[in-house]
């Protein structure tokens, strides 16, 4: 049976009333999981696994997959509206999304995010259908050395975020990388910089830090203003203007490509595609100074990349049985509990099942769009409540979010401290974005370097003898040189991201 034959059968199965219902429930639950604080997609999916025990395997998988990419969208809502990333992958959306909301264009931001997600998701699913197995094999050639090189590319890209002052951006990035070193080190497995506090053994905790740096800092900044409105202007049209459409198109296209390719590489977490898409978009833009001030591409790019990534990441799972991220590992566990082991064997032996699930991705993506677009206006209007209630609501949200990660008050404390720090940083115009990105990349860089050296027995030439790795290293150097050459003269004032 050829591919289209499979797809047709799959679609027929996926469109059964029962499976449509499961996809719907999954999308709704997933969006809720994404919106709710602290409950990341991994935990949310895990908690809902027992729900699926009573269902048939295909139905269960359709529902769980829908929960997964539904959660990706849910996190966007809080990022845009209250500058609190609902989950790690939504951090980048905060930069421009929240600015747009404050300018009364929150609805537009959510709308373009929904549309971009839809396009990214569908494109990735189509690519999945067309080229799954060969592409997956390609992704396998990404080992620890290639990963390390890729992270260096990421690091080089950060220099493009410095904005007003390259120096400030670099300092913040270095600070972020350093903070990422707190915890158990990948070399000896011994605690480092933990000041004897066991809660720090696993590192400073990314989510509490960003909730503080973004969400709480935002509130502290809000309450010092004289007016009683969180948003400066009235809610304007929900539909993007023609100009905004034009700008978003490119962003969506690039975001799809970036998200898709990074989704194929196992081990790349969901944040990386969003940040790469954002920085690339800023680079190719003729007016990069708009980024961080409410540029619609700054929302379209990461959101599209996010969803393209989520769908593409299913490829290594379904074709090779390799989960790309902890969340997908949970999905894989769900498959296994339901008696199906994803991998080449399943792909060959039970194509009916696999294709039904793949077909349901397309349907699910469509459902997400249909479900979310109408509500965009509702969500955006929430911001128009009196600011006391919005602020207290947000804080409640943040407390639950930070606490429920590990049932730890320490995390709440970290969040509060970062709130104060974020407030101070904003006041003195030190950019927060490079700090966050350093925090994200740090662990990846060190771990992949270490694993590469363990593999080679201490031989550094492993980085030069593997062609893909060497290629990426060259790219990293090129990007870095490119950033330095683009440095604007110091008198030109630009805003920091």
């Amino acid at each position, binding site marked *: 049976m050829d591919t289209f034959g499979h797809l047709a059968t799959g679609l027929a199965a996926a469109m059964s009333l029962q499976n449509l219902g499961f996809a719907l429930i999954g999308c709704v639950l997933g969006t809720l999981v994404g919106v709710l604080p602290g409950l990341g997609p991994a935990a949310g999916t895990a908690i809902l696994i027992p729900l699926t025990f009573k269902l048939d395997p295909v139905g269960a998988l359709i529902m769980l997959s829908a929960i997964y990419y539904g959660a990706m969208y849910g996190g966007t809502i809080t990022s845009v509206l209250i500058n609190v990333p609902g989950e790690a992958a939504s951090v980048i959306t905060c930069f421009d999304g929240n600015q747009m909301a404050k300018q009364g264009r929150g609805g537009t931001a959510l709308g373009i995010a929904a549309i971009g997600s839809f396009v990214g998701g569908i494109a990735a699913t189509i690519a999945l259908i067309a080229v799954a197995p060969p592409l997956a094999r390609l992704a396998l050639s990404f080992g620890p050395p290639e990963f390390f090189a890729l992270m260096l590319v990421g690091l080089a890209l950060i220099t493009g975020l410095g904005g007003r002052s390259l*120096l400030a951006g670099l300092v913040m990035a*270095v600070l972020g990388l350093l903070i990422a070193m707190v915890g158990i080190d990948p070399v000896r497995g011994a605690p480092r910089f933990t000041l004897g506090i066991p809660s720090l053994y696993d590192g400073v905790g990314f989510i509490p830090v960003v909730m503080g740096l973004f969400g709480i800092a935002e509130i502290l900044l809000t*309450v010092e203003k004289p007016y009683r409105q969180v948003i400066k202007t009235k809610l304007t049209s929900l539909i993007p203007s023609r100009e905004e459409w034009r700008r978003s198109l490119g962003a969506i296209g690039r975001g799809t490509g970036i998200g898709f390719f990074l989704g194929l590489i196992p081990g790349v977490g969901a944040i990386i595609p969003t940040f790469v898409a954002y920085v690339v978009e800023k680079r190719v833009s003729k007016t990069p100074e708009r980024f961080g001030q409410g540029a619609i591409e700054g929302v379209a790019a990461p959101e599209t990349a996010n969803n393209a990534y989520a769908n593409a990441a299913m490829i290594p799972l379904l074709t090779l049985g390799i989960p790309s991220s902890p969340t997908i590992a949970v999905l894989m566990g769900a498959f296994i509990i339901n008696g199906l082991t994803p991998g080449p064997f399943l792909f060959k032996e039970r194509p009916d099942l696999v294709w039904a699930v793949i077909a349901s991705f397309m349907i699910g993506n469509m459902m997400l769009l249909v479900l979310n677009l109408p509500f965009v206006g509702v969500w955006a209007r929430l911001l128009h409540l009196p600011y006391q209630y919005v*602020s207290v609501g947000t804080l409640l949200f943040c407390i639950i979010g930070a606490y429920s990660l590990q049932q730890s008050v320490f995390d709440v404390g970290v969040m509060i401290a970062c709130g104060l720090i974020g407030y*101070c940083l904003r006041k*003195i115009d030190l950019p927060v974005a490079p700090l966050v990105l350093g925090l994200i990349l740090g662990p990846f860089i060190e771990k992949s370097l270490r694993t590469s050296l363990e593999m080679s027995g201490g031989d550094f030439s492993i980085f030069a003898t593997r062609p893909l790795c060497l290629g990426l290293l060259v790219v990293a150097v090129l990007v870095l040189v490119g950033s330095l050459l683009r440095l604007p003269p110091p008198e030109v004032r630009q805003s920091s991201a």
Partner: protein
Amino acid sequence: MRRGRLVACVSLLGLFLAALVTSLDYSLTDALGPGPGFFPFWLSLIGAVLTVAMLIEDARSQDATSILPNRQALLQGGAVLVALTVAAALLEPLGFRLTMLLFIPGLLLALGARSPSAILLTAAAGSFGVFHVFYYWLKVPLPIGALGL
């Protein structure tokens, strides 16, 4: 701005230097390559150098705008921070519901909310309502304190 930046630079410098010293406790090299102290050492060093450069650049700037928070910012921002800290401290001893029952109206009033019914409703929903949803429906545990709430 200038003063704020200078203060920040000095604090950052202090942080980097402290990290530098601490990283010396961990071995810099290992049989296979960089040891646990390698990256922290070099990062702190680079960070310190860059901060000094930033310090010099900021010392030369003429930006005299004050960034000190005005009275309102201090009162309201302070209220937020104090409320958060107290809530965090009471979260486990008193339990989620009681703590939120105190936190929500307390902060709402401090920020200027005036409608008693809205405040009470929000307090009830935010404490007991939210707890019920998370604990019983979602099975996400929120703290239950000494008084059983």
